[in-house]
């Protein structure tokens, strides 16, 4: 039994007086591959930002590797939801990825080692050939890969991806999940996604986030969870037939 890498207890967060998350308690072991599912506005992104230390909780505690988030932020890789921020900014793909090599509390001069790490991260996402391109010239899916490469360049212990597949086609999604599965051998991974049917064949556990969090320590998404997560019955469709990825449930 490994120690929990993330421990959240009785976490409350509200935005302008409106409660977003209430009484969230969560304990996640090392090397889990956790899917966050839930409706838009359910608090998935907020929860990630709280775990990263970007937002501060109203009350409750968050411990990551036994420490408050701000202390270990440099060991966390983060792929934000919106990869179109500052789209027309004159910055090359390489410079974006090198941002991931900025060191915690060290002035920023980069060494050769940082360049190599950035190149390796780009290579693993098949984006190395675009390294000198301007970020603005890339498609949404390519930009997404660059941001994932930036997160990987930090060589994190924990990786958060907020809807990484929103702009990526189905082949790209499969490739990305295979890569994440490989990375999962050494890292704890959190992914926010609506690809519930694809997800369940890769993840090890699921958290339904909708004001509160229900954590399921198993890689299955049941209709009951979908009801809870989305607060309305959702038909689970398993297309791409060859393997059926969802457990069947009893007839009604």
């Amino acid at each position: 039994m490994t120690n929990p890498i993330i421990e959240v207890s009785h976490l409350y967060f509200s935005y302008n007086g409106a409660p977003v998350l209430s009484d969230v308690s969560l304990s996640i072991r090392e090397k889990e591959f956790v899917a966050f599912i839930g409706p838009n506005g359910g608090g998935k992104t907020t929860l990630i930002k709280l775990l990263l230390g970007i937002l501060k909780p109203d009350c409750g505690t968050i411990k990551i590797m036994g420490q408050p988030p701000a202390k270990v932020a440099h060991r966390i890789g983060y792929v934000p939801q919106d990869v179109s921020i500052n789209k027309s900014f004159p910055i090359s793909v390489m410079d974006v990825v090198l941002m991931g090599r900025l060191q915690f509390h060290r002035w920023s001069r980069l060494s050769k080692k940082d360049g190599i790490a950035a190149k390796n991260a780009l290579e693993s996402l098949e984006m190395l050939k675009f390294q000198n391109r301007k970020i603005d010239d890339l498609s949404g899916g390519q930009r997404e890969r660059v941001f994932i490469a930036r997160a990987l360049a930090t060589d994190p212990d924990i990786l958060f991806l907020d809807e990484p597949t929103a702009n990526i086609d189905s082949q790209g999604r499969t490739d990305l999940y295979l890569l994440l599965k490989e990375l999962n051998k050494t890292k704890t991974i959190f992914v926010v996604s609506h690809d519930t049917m694809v997800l369940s064949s890769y993840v090890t556990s699921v958290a339904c986030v909708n004001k509160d969090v229900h954590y399921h320590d198993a890689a299955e998404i049941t209709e009951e969870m979908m009801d809870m997560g989305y607060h309305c019955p959702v038909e689970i469709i398993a297309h791409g037939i060859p393997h059926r990825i969802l457990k069947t449930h009893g007839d009604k």
Partner: protein
Amino acid sequence: MIEALQFEFMRNAVIAGFFASLICGVIGSFVVVNRLVFLAGGIAHAAFGGIGIALFFGVPYMLGTLGFSLLAALIMTAVVLKNKSRADTFIGILWAVGMATGIILLDLTPGYNVNLISYLFGSILAVPTSDIWWMLGLSFFTIVSTGFFYRDLLAISYDDEFAKLRGVPVNLIYFLFIGLIAVSIVILIRVVGLILVIALLTIPPYIAEKYSRSLSKMMILSTILAGVFNLSGLWLAYTYNLTSGATIILVAAAAFFISMIFDMFFLKKHPELT
């Protein structure tokens, strides 16, 4: 133009133009990519209050203006960091208060009828050699600090959330950088006037942005563009006996419109060139 260089005032004008281009290219690029043009304009106009203070109390120009501008810049930065979406109103107020303070103090300054136009449009043809040394020092300081903090500045400009996550002291760097803008503006007003400062801080970087793949290239290209505008404006002003600051602005503005038309008709047909 070449024979004009035998005059010291002309040599000083060319050197001042060179340093102004360098500072504007580097600092202006940051101003444009961070969408801080309004804030830079606010500091430049608030600096006018500092000019009034310097003349009224008889303190040296550099001291009074620099102190006042840095104070205005600090207040503006604090407001921007606290509430980005409403900062423009506050900057607008400081902008006006600075100018009004300057005018009233000049009214009250006994026996001194200052030429306001020279502070608005500068007097690049009347730059004393002592100011050239100020500019040399400032350019050196600006380039060195920008080089040292380049990666941090780039990170907070592009994605401050991620920068914070990586441990970059975002607020500190932000204050430092806006302080650099204020210092640049003060020195440049003496030479090129506060209206030309804003024109030089914005037009060359804006044109350069579209043709640059990285921020450092944008800085180099906008420095070159600012240099070309300065020199050709100076030459036109000298040849046709026009106000130098206003001529430089119009040259820069003409280039700005030409680049816009070029983009509209040419780049649209050849998107691969960008």
